[in-house]
């Protein structure tokens, strides 16, 4: 093997290699710059069209105005505390009932949307898949508006809205779990003469249960967050209290409601974390 040559910029195969490497890096960098430049252009165009055209800068009042507005939120109104308890329980219950109802609705949808158990690959399967996507695409607020129009104010439309919104994700994961099962237990039960229901209950359900429970707990945690805002459109829980405090311009009270929501979320996160560990 040759001794190490002195490092330098002599001509020769080594120098040509270095030139090629540098050239390659340069083109790579230019490509990266072009992409960033393009993104910056779209961002600038978007900002111009939205924020710059639409904002009433004088009304905001500059940084001082913003800070004083923020300050109003920080003057906590502790008098609101006793009024928080009932709505907090309400919100929690809406989340629980909504998730449960969502589960119930998810079962038929998952059954339709699972390629291996769907009654009809041409008709039922696409319908199942479409229902899953539809449920996830409609925002929970829109669901709440629809149900408030249909059944009136109160907790019921909130529960229904949360349920309908959850169906999409729960049924999607359930369908995927069904599609991934081991066929042998299913065939065994069919072989001993079980009907479709028994096949499902003894063959499929035990296999998918851990995954389904995991996603239900996950969705329950998210639903606490959603349930809190159902009240903004009249569907019960802390949202209604939030709405009232804002209307009274009681910013300190608004902050208390937000803190109450955070407490609920914290509880939800903790329970969800340990429950999911226990299930899987």
């Amino acid at each position, binding site marked *: 093997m040759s001794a190490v040559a002195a490092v330098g910029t002599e001509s020769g195969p080594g120098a040509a290699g270095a030139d090629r490497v540098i050239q390659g890096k340069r083109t*790579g960098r230019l*490509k990266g710059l072009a*992409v960033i430049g*393009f*993104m910056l252009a*779209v*961002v600038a*165009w*978007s*900002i111009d*069209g*939205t*924020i710059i*055209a*639409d*904002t*009433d800068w004088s009304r*905001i009042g500059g940084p001082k105005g*913003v800070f004083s*507005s923020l300050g109003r*939120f920080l003057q906590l109104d502790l008098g609101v505390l006793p009024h928080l308890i009932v709505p907090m*329980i*309400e919100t929690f*219950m*809406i989340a*629980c*009932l909504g998730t449960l109802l969502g589960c119930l609705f998810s079962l038929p949808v998952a059954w339709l949307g699972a390629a291996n158990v769907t009654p009809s690959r041409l008709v039922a399967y696409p319908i199942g898949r479409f229902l899953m*996507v*539809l449920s*996830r*695409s*409609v*925002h929970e*607020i*829109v669901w709440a*508006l*629809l*149900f408030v*129009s*249909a*059944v009136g104010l*109160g*907790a*019921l439309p909130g*529960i*229904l809205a949360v349920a309908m919104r959850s169906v999409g994700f729960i049924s999607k994961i359930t369908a995927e779990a069904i599609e991934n099962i081991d066929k042998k237990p299913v065939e065994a039960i069919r072989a001993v003469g079980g009907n479709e229901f028994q096949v499902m209950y003894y063959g499929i359900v035990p296999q998918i249960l851990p995954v389904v429970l995991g996603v239900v707990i996950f969705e329950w945690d998210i639903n606490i*967050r959603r349930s*809190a*805002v159902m009240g*903004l459109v009249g569907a*019960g829980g802390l949202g209604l209290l*939030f709405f009232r405090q*804002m209307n009274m311009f009681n*910013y300190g009270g*608004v902050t208390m409601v*937000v803190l109450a*929501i*955070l407490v609920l979320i*914290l509880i939800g*996160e903790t329970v969800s974390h340990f429950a999911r560990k226990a299930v899987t």
Partner: protein
Amino acid sequence: MVFGIILFLAYSIAFLNIDLGRLPGAFGRLASFIANRYYPPDLDYVMEGGYLLSVLDTLRMSFLGGVFGVMIAIPLAWFGAFNVTPSRILLYPFGRFSIMSCRAIHETIWTILFVSILGFGMLAGVLALTVFCIGFAGKLFADEIEAIDKGPVEAIRATGANALQVFVFAVFPQVRVAFTGIAIYTWDVAFRAATVVGFFGGGGMGWYLKRNIQQLETERVGAIILSIIVLVLIAEGLSGQVRKRVARAKYGAVDQSAKARLIRRFCLPLFSILVTMTLPISPVR
């Protein structure tokens, strides 16, 4: 334990004064409500310039919220990843806490809060969407970082690199493809949120929804909800396709050129569509 849950649920139904009798009829009532009031949807209303401009605004807001949210989420996720955070005592709790706070509060509440400080309009909407995206993408990013192979991280640390160099050379190359998929998913979810942000004063399509509900123009409401569903479905379809392509690129050595082709094929036509949408509409607001 299961019995306890059932007991709690039964108690809840009583506590909330829910009239279970209304439940079976609810969907029938919803269906008839939709059939009578929302149908036929006033499609002319949603095809006119003012509404279409608000659709464009919603798109722009969701884009900005996604871009800014993802950009801020990346360093926060780096801080909030226990394995590679530059400081376990200071920056790790800061990163985790920031992301959790952004996530915990619903995007509509963020909208209302920003509107009360900054007034109605898209500034509040974009900020609310940005915060939402920080929470959404940040958690996914941090989980992704915590799942990386620590070997390359050790090796780069051993060369005497500082924390940022370790992130750029050892962490980011491992998560880059996953991050791109998450970013696209985040934009998709942000668009869904953006459609209703206007309902609470944040600009965009949602404001039309609110106004028409208040004015009891139910056929227009039906048309608006229909347009929201259609647009979200399109966005979901597009983002799904792009994510599939990105995931496929993960397994090839042509990563860089595939990404560039992706961007050229996707963004350029989208950009031109957006531009042409603005042209027939008067720029005067």
